[in-house]
């Protein structure tokens, strides 16, 4: 593993010294990216702990571990923590680390705002978790929110003081996401090095550009919805109360106008990551680069016109149900293009199966399973059967765990040698992959059977007819949870263990793009002056055209 560190090392001198200067006042995109990723990992384990409580309770029929009210708090908080605390910050962390290096920029466009975007997060999650923590550790108050992460009124408004904490936390998370998105768009549109035209950018950068526009479009909508919840709860308005002329279904429409694009906010960057990894380990350029970019843009557009498929059963005109059904099914077209192009990138490639590639391949297969069950849910008459059952739980966990989270793990294994300058332990990485891939299917696949058999979601107890598959699912859940401790160890080991093999600048034989021209680890400030891009530095297209 030869290591060529010929460029930029003098920049290490500018690294701020001392914990407060380096981290609290951080403006460096790599430091902020690292903080996002560490925060995400902490939240991943916290949300995972809640999942273990849920699976522990559901392991057997009857109530054994916790009260139903606390179970509802666990399902609500698990979702909020995983969506806003684990998945989204993980992608923002990856964006912070990689986008400036991929487009040839010295840093993010607005470094101080970047600092704000991150440091709002710990405060937001302290606020969100405080009512639950006070109840669990000191038996103070009524605990955390228990009305589900969708915060549907009137149920969510019956939650006592935790409602105010949750709404304030959601506002702060929204502000953080919006500022992060603005920063990412400004960086990509304005900070690219000369020669890095839009249609020469890595697909990961494209996926984030589109995701950032989605965030800007829908986060204010969520903010508006929860502000109306707040005034309904504490200031006597009746936006969502029929008694005062309001309409609770209106909340569902507004929420899902945010919520469905939010689903794509959590999966489009994953598409970008997989589109980076598969060409590298197939040693071929990405098949259909432009089609991939247009497919991501198409999915983003369609995400705005499908929201009501989450609420077919609330009652709506037949024309509405047909529109939302067909619009939802349309999403399968650009998604199919992406899966086809990933497969054709691999076709006749010189493939090797290092850990990032294994996770990327698992993503393609398992995310497709989640996609197919999504298609089933899009069919209106079928959805009347599946709605609010464990089939839905199985569907979105295939999309979010074996989709989004597997892609984050693939990305971490892919870029960790670049970040740390050391190769992680490949043998442990492969063990982590296989243990995760097997246990996650033991965990979630039986939930399809449970849902089809009629087991409702969000319940702490169930009919004994569902006992066997719940036991299997729980055992898979505990195995998956334990396996992730290995992931944390591998990352920690790679960042600390100086005896590991040094990474080359290119790291992976088939890797192409500006980020791989920098040393491993990269200098503290990446491109202090814009690099002159040559054909060999581009993963897509060439300078002349």
């Amino acid at each position, binding site marked *: 593993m030869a290591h060529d560190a010929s460029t930029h090392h003098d920049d290490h001198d500018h690294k701020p010294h001392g914990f407060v200067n380096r981290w609290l006042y951080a403006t460096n995109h790599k430091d902020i990216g690292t903080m996002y990723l560490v925060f995400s990992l902490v939240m991943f384990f916290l949300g995972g702990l809640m999942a273990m409580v849920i699976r522990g309770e559901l392991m057997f029929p009857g109530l054994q571990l916790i009260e139903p009210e606390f179970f509802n708090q666990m399902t609500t908080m698990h979702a909020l923590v995983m969506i806003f605390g684990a998945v989204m910050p993980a992608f923002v962390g990856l964006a912070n680390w990689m986008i400036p290096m991929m487009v040839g920029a010295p840093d993010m466009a607005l470094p101080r705002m970047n600092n704000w975007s991150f440091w709002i997060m710990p405060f937001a999650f302290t606020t969100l978790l405080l009512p639950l923590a006070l109840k669990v550790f000191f038996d103070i108050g009524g605990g955390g929110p228990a009305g589900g992460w969708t915060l549907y009124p009137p149920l969510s408004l019956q939650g006592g003081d935790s409602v105010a904490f949750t709404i304030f936390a959601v506002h702060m998370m929204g502000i953080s996401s919006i500022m992060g998105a*603005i920063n990412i768009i400004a960086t990509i549109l*304005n900070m690219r090095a000369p020669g890095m035209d839009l249609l020469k950018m890595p697909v990961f950068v494209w996926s984030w550009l589109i995701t950032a526009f989605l965030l800007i479009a829908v986060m204010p909508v969520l903010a*508006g919805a929860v502000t109306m919840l707040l005034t309904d709860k504490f200031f006597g308005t009746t936006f969502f109360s029929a008694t005062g002329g309001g309409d609770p279904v*209106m909340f569902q429409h*507004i929420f899902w106008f945010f919520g469905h694009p939010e689903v794509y906010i959590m999966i489009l960057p994953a598409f970008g990551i997989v589109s980076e990894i598969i060409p590298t380990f197939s040693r071929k350029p990405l098949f259909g680069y432009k089609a991939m970019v247009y497919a991501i843009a198409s999915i983003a557009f369609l995400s705005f016109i499908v929201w009501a498929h989450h609420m077919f059963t609330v009652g709506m005109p037949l024309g509405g149900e047909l529109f939302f059904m067909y619009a939802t099914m349309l999403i399968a077209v650009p998604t199919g293009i992406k899966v086809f192009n990933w497969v054709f990138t691999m076709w006749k490639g010189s493939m090797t199966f290092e850990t990032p590639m294994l996770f990327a391949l698992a993503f393609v297969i398992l995310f497709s399973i989640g996609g197919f069950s999504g298609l089933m849910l899009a069919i209106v008459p079928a959805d009347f059967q599946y709605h609010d059952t464990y089939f839905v739980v199985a569907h979105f966990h295939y999309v979010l765990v074996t989709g989004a989270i597997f892609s984050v793990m693939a990305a971490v294994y892919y870029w960790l040698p670049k970040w740390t300058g050391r190769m992680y332990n490949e043998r442990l990485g492969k063990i982590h992959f296989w243990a995760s891939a097997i246990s996650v299917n033991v965990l979630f696949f039986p939930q399809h059977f449970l849902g089809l058999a009629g087991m409702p979601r969000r319940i702490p107890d169930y009919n004994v007819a569902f006992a066997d598959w719940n036991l299997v699912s729980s055992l898979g859940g505990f195995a998956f949870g334990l396996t992730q401790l290995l992931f944390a160890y591998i990352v920690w080991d790679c960042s600390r263990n100086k005896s590991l093999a040094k990474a080359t600048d290119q790291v992976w034989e088939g890797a192409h793009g500006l980020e791989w021209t920098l040393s491993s680890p990269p200098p503290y400030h990446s491109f202090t002056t814009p690099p002159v891009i040559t054909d060999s530095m581009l993963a897509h297209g060439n300078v002349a055209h």
Partner: protein
Amino acid sequence: MITTDRSELDHRRAAAKLTAWILAGVVFGIYGLFWMSGVLGS
């Protein structure tokens, strides 16, 4: 491989700030629209 021209970078940073302000305006616009729709609709 590296140019020494920093003035272009300064121009890019200024343009980025303008982009950010325009996007912030869009955010507040959308927030206001949804608020207004809620106020008028109820």
